[in-house]
Structure formats: C-alpha cells, structure tokens
C-alpha cells in the first residue's frame, strides 16, 4: 500500500499549495472591490473617527502584504477573524451554515452516483436499442440546463402545481432537533426520531435532486461512453465466450474497468455542485452557506468572504483527494505500481 501512501502525501502537499494560492488570490480580490468595509459595516450615521478606529482595528491602513501576514498568523491559530455582518467569529458562522450546504451537496452526490451510474450501465448494456436511446435523451436533457433552472422547474412542478414536496426549508419547524453534527438527516437518526428524519428527507429531496440533475446526466453519459468502449475489448468478448450472463458482464466485468476513467470527471462534477448549491439554496430558501456568502460579499465583509471561500476550496480539494484515493483503490495499476505513479 505504500504507493497509495505516496500518492496521498503528494496530493496533500499539492492541496496545501493550492489553498495558499487561493487564500492569496481571494485576499487580494476582496480588497480590490470598491468600497470601504469599515464604512459599510458602521453605516452612514457613523462618524469619521469611528470609521478610522475600525480601519485601524482591522489593520486596513497597513500594506496588503502586512495585512495578509496578520491574516495567516490568525489563521494558524484557527482564527478567521470576526464578521462585520454578524458580529461573531467567522468560524462560528461557518460552523452554523456549512453543515446544511454540505448535507445538501452530499445527498445530491449520492443521487448523482446512485442514479447516474446505473443509468449509464443500463444504457451501455442495451446500446443501440430503445432503453439506450431513452436514457441518452433523458441524460442529454439533464446536462442541457443549469441546476438553478432545474430547481425552478422542479419546484414549480412538484411543489407548486403538484404539491408533493415542500417549497422551502430543511425541516418542519415543529420538530425540535438537538444539533450534534448539523446534518439533519444524521441528527434526527441520532435522536431516534423517525418522523423528523422522514420530514428532513422529504425537505432535502427536491433541492438535492435539482442540484444533481445535470450531474446525473453527465455521469450517465460518461459511464455509457466508457462502457461502450470497454464492450469492444477482448476481455469482454472472452467473458461472453465463456457464457457469463449479460447482467454480470454489465454490472461487473465491463463496469469496473469503465468506472476508473469516469470517476475523475464525476469527482469534479461533484465538487462543482458546491458552487451550484449557492443558486439552488437561493431558490429553495435552504439555510446554508450561500445566503451567508452572498450577504457578506454584498457587505464587503472581508473576513467572512475569505473564510467562506477558503472553506469551499478546502471542501473541493478534500473531495478530489477522496476521488483520487478511490481511483487508486479501484485501479490495481496504481495500487501496485512500484514507483508510485500518480
């Protein structure tokens, strides 16, 4: 397994470099946006002196490089500063809003993989016949509209015209759930409250599905394309010549070799959902990081902007790291390579 360890440490190193780069970039960009954050935070009625004091407290009069130095020093102690918008530590704000977003994205990811891969597998197994044509049309439809469009369409269809799903929120207010992980699906189960779990599931389904639709289409198309190629390989012909059943060939012997090239893209799509989640959250009034993110950007709340972007970047990198490890696990050539190829 040392090849995998080498891979892991290499990727961790690269991730760290990327994070440093992102922090510099966003630090710079946030300061280029016009407007004085201290003035915005204090409002039009504050005196010049008050504004000057706040600018001093925020080190805003120092050169940008020095400001960045202050930021890194604080960050190393786990301190992202105080949000001027909520007047609380940014870390606290993120801890409050991030779980809702993560839960939404993770659930959407499960839908993407759980629906997209089997659709692609089916499509490839029946390539050239009607199930294939049907799935290809449906998945093309899925990728051809962005997720916020799907969010609006699905909301109109299944929450408004056919009120099957709730329009907004994470859970019906009457449920009292103690917060442990911040993931309602987990917290309700921990509390042993089945009704609340079902309610949370009912709330999350439509936004998560809207978020996942294009990913489902993408995953299905990718899996199909790779599998159709695999079906032409001699080892699939050999499996057929030995009478392995069509189902077993599709689900195992043609699927696994095709999964490896698909997985990288699926991982990227999954991570991209973090960005799309902002719009879907807005449509479904999902109390996640997006509302917070938008509010702090409009208020030029420097600390909060940097904190939010950094956390999202870190999540993106973690997802990619997990995907890389998964590929290493699935692909024996990586797992057994003597030199730890990447």
């Amino acid at each position, binding site marked *: 397994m040392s090849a995998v360890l080498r891979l892991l440490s290499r990727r961790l190193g690269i991730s760290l470099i990327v994070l440093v780069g992102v922090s510099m970039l966003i630090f710079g960009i946030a300061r280029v946006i016009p407007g004085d954050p201290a003035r915005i935070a204090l409002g039009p009625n504050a005196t010049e002196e008050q504004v000057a004091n706040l600018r001093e407290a925020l080190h805003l009069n120092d050169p940008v490089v020095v400001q960045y130095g202050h930021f890194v020093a604080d960050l190393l102690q786990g301190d992202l500063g105080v949000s001027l918008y909520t007047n609380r530590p940014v870390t606290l704000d993120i801890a409050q809003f991030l779980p809702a977003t993560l839960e939404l994205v993770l659930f959407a990811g499960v839908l993407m993989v759980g629906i997209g891969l089997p659709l692609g597998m089916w499509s490839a197994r029946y390539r*050239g016949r009607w199930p294939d044509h049907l799935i290809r049309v449906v998945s093309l439809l899925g990728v051809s509209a962005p997720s916020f469009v799907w969010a609006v369409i699905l909301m109109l269809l299944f929450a408004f015209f056919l009120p099957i799903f709730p329009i907004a929120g994470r859970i019906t207010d009457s449920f009292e759930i103690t917060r442990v992980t911040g993931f309602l699906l987990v917290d309700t189960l921990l509390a042993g409250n089945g009704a609340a779990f079902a309610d949370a599931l009912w709330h999350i389904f439509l936004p998560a599905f809207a978020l996942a639709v294009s990913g489902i289409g993408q995953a299905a198309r990718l899996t199909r394309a790779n599998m159709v190629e695999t079906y032409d*390989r*001699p*080892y699939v*012909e*050999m*499996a*057929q*010549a*030995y*009478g*392995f*059943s069509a189902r077993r060939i599709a689900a195992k*012997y043609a699927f*696994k*070799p095709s999964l*490896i090239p698909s997985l990288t893209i699926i991982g990227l799509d999954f991570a991209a959902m973090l960005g799309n989640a902002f719009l879907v959250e807005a449509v479904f009034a999902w109390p996640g990081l997006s509302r917070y993110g938008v509010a702090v950007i409009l208020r030029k709340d420097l600390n909060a902007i940097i904190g939010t972007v950094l956390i999202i970047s870190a999540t993106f990198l973690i997802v990619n790291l997990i995907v890389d490890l998964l590929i290493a696990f*699935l*692909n*024996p*050539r990586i797992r*057994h390579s003597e030199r730890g190829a990447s």
Partner: protein
Amino acid sequence: MSDVLEIRDLRLRFRGYSGTSEVLHGISLNIRAGERVALVGESGSGKSVTARIVLGLLQELPSAQVDGGLFFEGEDLNRLSRRQWRALRGTSISMIFQDPTSSLNPVFTIGTQFAEVLRRRDPKLSREAADERAGTLLQSVSIHDHSRVLGAYPFQLSGGMNQRVVIAMALANRPSLLIADEPGTALDVTVQAQTLKLMHELVERSGTAVLFISHNLGVVREFADRVFVIYRGRIVEQGPTRAIFEDPGHAYTRALMAAVPRITGGGLPDFNDSESAFLDPMVVHGGGKA
C-alpha cells in the same frame, strides 16, 4: 466416429446501409471427438466469424444473418434458445483468444476470473474451493507458484504466463470442444511454440477436440490432424494435414504455403490473386470427410 461439431453449408451475411454483403458462402466442416482440426486462411477470409458463430456470439448482432446447419455433439444448435446456447459456452465449448493479456480483465485478479470460469460448471463453488481447483489446473500448465499467480493482475504477469493461465481456464471445465482463435499470435515465437506444445499435450490427454484457427501454416502443420483451407468465405481445400502439405492442390493453398517465412531467406513471394486458379473448385484429399 461421432462428430463433436458439424457445420453444414454455413452462410453469413451482414446487413449494412448499402444492402447486404455475404461473408461466408456456404462452409461445411466437421470435427470428430478428440480431433484437432485447423481452419487456415488469411485475415478477412472468415475464420474468426466462423468461430463466433459456433459460440452463438455473432448471432446476437442485429446486423448479422446466419444460415446453415450447426450441430454440436449431434444436437442442432439452431434449435436451442439463446439461454441454452449460452449454457454450452464456457462449459462444453470454450475458447482461447489471440492475445492472452488483453483477453484477461485488467482490474480483476486471475483468481477472481478463474473462479468465475469454474462456476460456469459449478455455480455453488466457494472461492476457497475454486482457488484450490485453479491451483491444480495451473500446475498442469506448469505454473508452480500458483498462489502468487491467482492473487496477481494480468498486467503483473508475462504474456507467456497469461497464455498458460488462459489455456488452464479454457480446459478447466473439461469442454469437448476448444476453439483456439490464433492463440498466442501476440506472443513472441518461442513462447508461442512452448505454449502450443503445452496445449497440444493437454488436449491430447483430455481428449478435447480443437478447432484451431490460424494463418500460420508452420504452426498448423505441428498441431492439426486435418486442415480446412478457407479463402474469401469458401473452403478451397481440405484433407489430412500430411496430404495437404505434401500435395497442395489448390492455387491458394500453394500461395499460402509459399508465404511461410523460412530462415534460409527468400522473403515473402508475390502472388497474383486475380489469377483464375484462385477460384478453382474445392480440392478434397482422401480421408478428409468421414
């Protein structure tokens, strides 16, 4: 003696956008129990499609239209359902492909793939029992560190090693017919010769009939009891190996023999295949057809 395989007037057409094109124009051949029969011809002559028709694989292509009699151990294959035909594959009929390394799945261990093959005959076989049987079978193809091989992936083994594995798999379920489609062509010559010798010994010992598909007459001469020469979808000559090699009757057979490279030099001869002699009727040597 009874025939393991009999093919009677087999025709194959492919339907395309510009009408149908016939690929096999009525092929007849038979293989007796335990006999090694070679089907020889250049690429595109119809050797490999014949093998795939016997397995019932080609018939699943919507564009392929197959006519003609196919009998396996006296049973009319055309009357079997797809399911019944599939049941013969990997049990009573097995196949070896051209390149052993690419015919093994790259992301599963040899052991997993071997167990799947063994379960064709014995669906309830546990993995431990399968590994044990596979180990014995690998020993019969002179692989002695079989536990390492069973745990390995195809890319970790040499081509010759994979070829032995594939031979062991092909004979694992004691098939009565083995179809070998240019086995080992992808390997280097010495390894190919070794593995063919091994295959020869094993099928002789187990009494497995072989349909040996090749373009290499040198190999065929070593391996086969009888030879069918196929040219552009027709059998042009057939007979016992020795008779054909001593007295090739058809112009195409002579051209094919002249194409076998010799160490003493000479290189490949040019031959003019628009010559009318290539369209001569089939030459049958004595003792050819039962």
